[in-house]
């Protein structure tokens, strides 16, 4: 029963994919869209069933399908593990997934390859599910690479534009760098514990004494690199902003809600490994904090609406990693969920805006949209408040918990994180004001077509906005349902709802004030003095550095891409030729000898006989007179 349901859960989107690939074009756009949506919705339904079962029974469901890969000291089988974590993840993957599918039906309707778009989306959901419910690291790896592939396909969905293709390629390759790290981690874990299966691994580690901590921390570090690649942390974050080349629903689903959180999922999965590697945890925390700050600063000056959201995603992910690094996995998970809600909502909202403006993404050409696009505006506002950490919106609770944990461990980290959230509030409202308030700055032609998006687009927005608003309820500071629900996962004791003292309240206050300050600054800057960001050419000073993302991309290009290509050219033009000429060299020598030899063959009998006699004498001498 469970097996079949699990298979249904997994294969429904896959069947959708196959159907859309083969028959999508013939059955028409809407139909293919509907089918794609239904398959995901079906998985969502199954997930709900499992959710109920798990939250009642509290016992994970293990499913073995078949042997997959045989290694000398262990074998990897293809199986599923449905426990609290995976089911929780499935909930918002499939839930938000189906919402975004609905959204896309309308959003992508003008695209000739809509059926392919839905096919890819389904494929993505399929791989994401694989990633989440896999019972061992290698099945996770399937999903891990699979979602990477889908993100490649979807970023490059408009494949006639080579820039988009470059972005897609960049995303795939940077992910692959992470994947190598993940693989190395898998290798080390495999050789240390002779298993990749989560359950066995957990017992092996928790049960074992005198573990080889050195190798475990190396493994943990390698795994963390993998997570960096997938979840866009320093130094592997540059692909995510470029990934905005893809259609907006893709950004919402893959690059905000689900795929980019895979790293957090993996680390939470293997929390018992990371608990053994405190150094690595510190690294994670620091990387997370720094990432959140850097990304936030970059987001301050971006003018492309989606770029702002992208950097905000990176920065939020940074906060989650901070939490992970501090061992507060449940907090990270909490923020993942809330973030999924409001960030998906924001992206979809921006999509709705872009849709209304026929593809215009530059905020300098927007404004005053709140009159025509009421629903979009409302939902956008709610989510912005949520992300800025204003109570009682969901973001407040999750972010606040992170800050508290940070404060407990390390004041510096706490400061960085708070600063980041302040900036977050600022740039989010900057975005909001520039987009929806004041007068419309676009062309008259655009102005004439301004309209609120159809219900298929607004419906998901509304749902997500509601979730973004009330999502915080699942883990209230005082009694957290989430912590209780997740507690079986964690080896070490989950620090329970903090006994609330002055510090805690002070921290809360600071956080809220920070958020409000950010909003206030934005308000004064863009409403009071109604500034508009200047044209690219006129950007100067530090803001220019920020606008160009600290020139990290250029740096990487010089350091890696160009050097490798140069090396390749050098190998091709010099090393290869030298090597082959070395082989031909012998041939040349032989030919030269032959040429000289031909002169000896002079044709004169006298000479021939002379050599004859010489040879004779030499032999005689050698044999008889030499002694």
């Amino acid at each position, binding site marked *: 029963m469970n097996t079949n349901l699990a298979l249904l859960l997994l294969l429904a989107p896959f069947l959708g994919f196959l159907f859309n690939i083969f028959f999508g074009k013939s059955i028409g756009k809407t139909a293919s869209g509907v089918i794609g949506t239904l398959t995901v919705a079906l998985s969502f339904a199954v997930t709900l069933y499992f959710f109920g079962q798990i939250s009642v029974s509290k016992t994970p469901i293990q499913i073995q399908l078949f042997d997959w890969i045989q290694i000398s000291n262990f074998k990897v089988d293809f199986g599923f593990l449905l426990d609290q974590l995976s089911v929780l993840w499935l909930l918002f993957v499939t839930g938000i997934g189906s919402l975004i599918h609905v959204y896309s039906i309308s959003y992508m309707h003008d695209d000739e390859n809509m059926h392919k778009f839905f096919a890819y989306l389904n494929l993505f959901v399929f791989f994401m599910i694989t990633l989440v419910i896999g019972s061992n690291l290698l099945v996770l790896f399937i999903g891990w690479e699979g979602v990477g592939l889908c993100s490649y396909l979807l970023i490059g969905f408009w494949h006639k534009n080579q820039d988009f293709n470059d972005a897609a390629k960049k995303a795939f390759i940077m992910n692959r760098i992470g994947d190598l790290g993940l693989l190395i981690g898998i290798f080390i874990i495999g050789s240390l514990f002779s298993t990749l299966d989560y359950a066995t691994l957990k017992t092996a580690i928790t049960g074992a004494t005198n573990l080889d901590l050195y190798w475990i921390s190396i493994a943990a570090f390698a795994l963390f690199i993998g997570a960096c690649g997938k979840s866009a942390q320093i130094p592997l974050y540059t692909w995510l902003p470029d990934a905005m080349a893809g259609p907006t629903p893709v950004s919402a689903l893959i690059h905000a809600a689900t795929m980019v959180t895979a790293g957090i999922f993996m680390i939470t999965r293997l929390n018992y490994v990371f608990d053994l590697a405190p150094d690595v945890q510190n690294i994670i925390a620091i990387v997370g904090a720094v990432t959140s700050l850097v990304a936030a600063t970059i987001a301050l000056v971006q003018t492309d609406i989606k770029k702002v959201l992208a950097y905000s995603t990176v920065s939020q992910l940074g906060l989650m990693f901070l939490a992970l690094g501090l061992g507060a996995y449940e907090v990270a998970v909490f923020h993942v969920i809330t973030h999924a809600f409001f960030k998906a909502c924001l992206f979809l909202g921006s999509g709705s805006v872009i849709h209304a403006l026929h593809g215009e993404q530059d905020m300098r050409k927007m404004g005053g949209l709140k009159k025509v696009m009421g629903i979009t505006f409302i939902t956008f506002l709610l989510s912005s408040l949520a992300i800025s950490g204003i109570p009682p919106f969901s973001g407040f609770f999750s972010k606040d918990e992170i800050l508290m944990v940070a404060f407990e461990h390390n004041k510096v980290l706490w400061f960085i994180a708070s600063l980041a959230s302040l900036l977050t509030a600022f740039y989010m409202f900057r975005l909001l004001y520039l987009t929806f308030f004041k007068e419309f700055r676009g062309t008259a032609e655009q102005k004439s077509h301004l309209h609120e998006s159809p219900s298929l687009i607004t419906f998901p927005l509304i749902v997500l906005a509601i979730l973004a608003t009330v999502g915080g309820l699942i883990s209230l500071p005082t009694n957290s349902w989430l912590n209780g629900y997740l507690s079986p996962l964690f080896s070490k004791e989950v620090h329970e709802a903090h006994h609330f003292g002055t510090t805690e309240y002070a921290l809360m206050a600071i956080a809220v004030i920070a958020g409000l300050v950010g909003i206030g600054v934005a308000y004064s800057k863009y409403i009071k003095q109604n500034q508009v960001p200047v044209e690219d050419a006129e950007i100067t000073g530090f803001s220019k550095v920020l606008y160009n993302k600290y020139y990290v991309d250029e740096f990487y290009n010089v350091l890696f891409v160009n050097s490798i290509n140069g090396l390749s050219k050098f190998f091709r033009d010099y090393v290869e030729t030298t090597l082959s000429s070395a082989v031909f060299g012998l041939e040349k020598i032989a030919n030269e000898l032959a040429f000289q030899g*031909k002169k000896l*063959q*002079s*044709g*004169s*009998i*006298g000479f021939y*006989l*002379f050599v004859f*006699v010489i040879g004779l004498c030499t032999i005689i001498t050698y044999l008889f007179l030499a002694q």
Partner: protein
Amino acid sequence: MNNILNEIGIENYIFLSVILFSIGVFGVLYRRNAIIVFMSIEIMLNAVNLLFVAFSTYHQDAQGQVFVFFSMAVAAAEVAVGLAILVSIFRNLGSIDINNLKNLKG
């Protein structure tokens, strides 16, 4: 029995014929005219024949002398062929200088 050979000593015969043989060899090496080359070769052969006779006396054994006849016959045959070749060369080239025969080389 005391034949002249024991008094002179076989070695001297050997030396003599070696010298003759060498003269022949040098003749072959240094003369251009094909006829003279022939003659030098004949000297070589005859030097050997001489040695044959000497040895056969030395060993008191007739085989050597018989062999001399063999080799003379052979030499005669060779010269017959050789002269024939020479004649045809002379017909074609009008000279028998072996240094002119360098068409085949390389």
